[in-house]
Structures are given as C-alpha cells and as structure tokens.
C-alpha cells in the first residue's frame, strides 16, 4: 500500500500574536496568543468554559478566521492557503462526533479520501486499516452510525479524522460526552494510537485530569485565551505558575504527580528475598503502587515485567522511594 498509518508524521504548529476580535465586542475573544506546538506532540489547551480555547483551536483550521497574527504549520503560513485545501490536511474531531447519519461507516471514513480522488480499492483498504487501528470489527464498515454506541461512534470519528493521513489533528473535547469508563478506554486507546501515528495534536478540554493524562504539554488558559502556564504536566504539577494554575490542579496534586510517573521510569531497589510481597507490573504508575501498598499494608512491593505469578521480577519499590518521587527526586523521566 502506498501509505501506512504512520505515513505523514506530525508538523510543528506555530501561533504568533493570534487575536480574534468579534465586531461589536469590546474585549477580544482571543488576545495575542503565541505558542509553539512541537511536531508529534499532544498539546492540551485547558481552561474554563468560554476562555477561548475552542476559538483558538478553530483558528488553526480556519473554521474561525483570526483577526490578526500568523499561524504556520510546518513553516507554511496557513492564511495564504485555500481554506478547504488547508482543512483536508487537518483531522478534526468534535465532542458531538458528527458522523453523517445517512452514510455507512465506510462512507463516513472514506468520504474525504474519495473526494481526494483515491481509487475505490485504496479507499476500501484504508477504511479496513483504520477500523482495525481504532479497534472496531471489520464488518462495522457496512453499518450506519445509529447502529453503534457512543463510544464506538467516537472511534469512527477518530478514524474519519485520520482517513487522509493528516499531519495535524484538532480534537475538541473528543471524549467529553462519554461515560467515565468508556472515556478512560478511549483515552488509553488514543494514547496507544498516538504512539503509532505520531501526529501533532491540539486537544481541547476543560478537565484538568484529562489534560494531565493526554498531554505531552499543557497550556493552562485564562479568559481571552491568555496563557497562564505552558509546560509539561510534571512541571506544572511541580511548580504551578500562580494561584490560577494551582486552582486548576485542585486537591491531590501530589497524587496526580505520582499518577504521571510510570514504574519503568523509577529507580528500583533489588528484590528482597522475602516471599508473599504484593506484585505490580512495571507499566503501572507510582500512584498505583502506592495504592497497592496502602491496600496491602506493606511498605514494599515487587515490580514485575508482566502479569501473573511466574512473571519476571524486575526489582522492588519502597515507600521511601515513592515519597522521594513525590518530592521530585527519585524519578528520572
């Protein structure tokens, strides 16, 4: 096949002094935002409702035209491009999903590739590939959207956005309308998928915990989309820029920090020769390990390479190390 899922890698997006002013309104909706979104990273815009985060995002694919400022993708000024051509290079996923109810799943996913002139067989192969990528059975291609659950529909929404292999994806609260369990599933699957496709993703949410989970970087926005802090989740948790950012982190900031730290990134102690210690897989987070310690009443747990009693033991983790990790010492991320 001519292109694989990982065909086009992400490109850097750069916003410079981007402002949106609506006529008849004293204050701009978005005021002089400048930020660099590195290629292949997930950048989450997080802020309260009405802070202009969605407006900022929609200016990138020009569903909203900026009043002033420049936006470049891969060095190209997007304002010089034809808006429709430009949008075909940007995947767009919205909270309400917006699958076309009169079109089968394969036609929803294949709509843009078909319009781009792909051959019938190439479109069909692409649809099959994407359905597999988002974890849906191949025979769903022939179904209509209303025959799918909300979570399944959003998987199709993501597949549709990826259809023409865009280097950039915009996601506006994509998992906001699903129940907590489905949301957790979709988030995990999306992170797995992103590890494969390495697109540049702008992700909008008002849920700071989702931002922590999804983002390589987080931009905490004030009203008018003014950036309060733009940094990695770890750095924001470790040192919130001000009270506004701290209020977003809310209670349990230390625990949230531990939830970002995988056991594989922590220095483990050699495994003690004692039997009956609780076991945890290396893919889990330090927070999971702490939870296990509290639950089992043990200040040390064994870290294993895989699930199961006969899995290889990689080392052990002590409560002392966890406390050090919270203070930002033990980890080497």
């Amino acid at each position, binding site marked *: 096949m001519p292109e694989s899922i990982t065909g086009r890698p992400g490109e850097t997006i750069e916003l410079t002094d981007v402002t949106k002013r609506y006529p008849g309104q004293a204050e701009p909706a978005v005021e002089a935002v400048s930020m660099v979104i590195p290629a292949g990273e997930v950048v989450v815009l997080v802020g309260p409702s009405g802070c202009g985060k969605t407006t900022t995002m929609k200016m990138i694919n020009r569903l909203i035209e900026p009043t002033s400022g420049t936006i470049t993708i891969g060095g190209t000024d997007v304002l010089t491009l034809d808006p429709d051509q430009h*949008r075909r290079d940007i995947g767009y996923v*919205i909270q309400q999903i917006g699958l076309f109810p*009169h079109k089968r799943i394969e036609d929803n996913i294949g709509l843009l590739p078909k319009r781009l002139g792909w051959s019938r067989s190439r479109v069909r192969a692409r649809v099959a590939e994407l359905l597999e990528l988002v974890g849906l059975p191949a025979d769903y291609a022939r179904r209509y959207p209303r025959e799918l659950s909300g979570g399944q529909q959003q998987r199709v929404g993501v597949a549709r956005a990826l259809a023409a292999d865009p280097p950039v994806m915009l996601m506006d609260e994509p998992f906001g309308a699903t129940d907590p369990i489905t949301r957790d599933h979709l988030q995990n699957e999306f992170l797995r998928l992103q590890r494969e496709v390495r697109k540049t993703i702008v992700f909008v949410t008002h849920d700071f915990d989702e931002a922590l989970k999804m983002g390589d970087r987080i931009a905490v926005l004030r009203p008018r989309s003014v950036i309060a802090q733009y940094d990695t989740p770890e750095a924001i948790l470790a040192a919130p820029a001000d009270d506004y950012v701290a209020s977003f982190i809310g209670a349990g900031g230390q625990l949230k920090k531990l939830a970002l730290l995988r056991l594989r990134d922590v220095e483990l102690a050699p495994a003690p020769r004692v039997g009956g210690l609780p076991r945890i897989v290396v893919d889990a987070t330090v927070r999971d390990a702490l939870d296990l310690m509290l639950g089992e009443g043990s200040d040390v747990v064994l870290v294993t390479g895989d699930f199961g009693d006969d899995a290889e033991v990689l080392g052990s983790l002590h409560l002392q190390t966890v406390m050090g990790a919270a203070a930002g010492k033990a980890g080497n991320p």
Partner: protein
Amino acid sequence: MTAPVTAQRPARAARGTGRAGLLVRPALIGAGLLVLWWWAGSQQLDSIEARNVNGEVIGSQVLEHVELTLICTALTIAIAIPLGIAVSLSRSRAGRLVVLSLGNLGQAIPSIGLIVLLALVISIGVGTAVIALVAYAVLPVLRNTMVGIEGVDPVLTEAARGMGLSRLAVLFTVELPLAVPVILAGVRTALVLTVASAPLAALIDGGGLGEGLFTGLTLNRPVISVTFGVLVAALALLADWLGLLAETSLRPKGI
C-alpha cells in the same frame, strides 16, 4: 422578524402499519370507483348526461387533468427547490422574508380568485391556468426545502466543513440528502393541492375534470357533477398515495 414557517411533516404512516399499510389506500380508491361506476350505470341518463358521462369523455378529461397536474408539479419543483436552496445558502434574512412572503401571498389569495384574475390580466387558456396553479403550489415546496436544509444539525455541517468540504459539497453530500424527507413532504402537499385545484382551470378554458364538474353544476345534472367530483377526489387521494410511496422509498437509509 422572520416570516412564520410551519413545514409539512414527513410521513411516518408507513412506519406504523408496515409496507402492507401502503396497499390499503389504492384498494379503497378502487372500491370507491367501482361504487361510482355501478351507481352511474344504474341511473337513467338523459342525452346531456349521456354525452358527458361516458368512457371517452371521462378518459380524455382524466388525461388532461393528469397532464396539467404533472406539468404544474414539475414546474413547481423546478422553481421552488432551487429557490429554497439559494435562499438557505445565502443565509440572508431579507431574502428569506421576501421569498416566504411572496409564497404566502400566492397561497393566501383564494385559488379561484387567482385564476380568474390572471385570466383577466393575461388571457384564458392552459398557460394561464398553469401559472396560477404553480403560484399556488410553490409555497409548500419552497418552505419545506428551506426548513429541511436549515433543520440539518449544525454539528454535521461543521464536521463536514472541518474535514475540508466546500460549501457546495456540504450541500450536496450532507444537507440535501438529509433534507429529502422534509422536501418530499412539501412536494406531496403541492401535488395534492394541484390535483385538487386543477378543476378551476376549466373556468378559463384550461381543460381537465373541471369541465365535466362545472357542466354538471350549471346544467343542474347531479349525475355529471357527482361523477366528476368523485373522480377528482380519487385522483387527489391517488396523488397523495404516490407521494407517500416516494417519501417511503426515497428516505435516506440510516435516519
């Protein structure tokens, strides 16, 4: 400041009763026509009645009536659907107001008045009858086209625009297909309106079943007027049924 818009609702009848329900209507119409045939045949016809109530006259007038209806409906669709699309696309409130007001005006004037008025202004004949009937039937199709397009969930148009479809592509791939049931409901209304108003064409020498109907009325021959009256009613019911069939079969799958 927008004109009041109440659209005809798309048919749901076929849902409740299933496909078999669609066969009830033509059976009833057929039964009605049989009763008419039996009743007319049992009457003692005088020479005037015999000259009007016979197969040849009825056949030619039904044909004229159907022709007139088809021409009018085709013209109505050809005018109202593009106009409705254009007004919806322009998103102009003024355009919407003007078009709907004109449409309302066309329908507010009693059809008999409109036909006679146009005959005085233009001339008598089929052409004038067509103009009057089209003016009368444009509104439901126009209104339903606009309402159908505007009723498409904005989320869908935004998703389509967001993936890089042009305004026109969004219209043809998303908005119009989803508006089909509403537009067809308007066409069905227009079709029935036209069949039922077309007898008035006979007043200005436009032909159709109105000829027999008015002959019966002016000459005080109930056999004639009842025969042609029932035929008009049967045709109108048949037209409505055909519209229903179209709505059921053309409704996009998946919605």
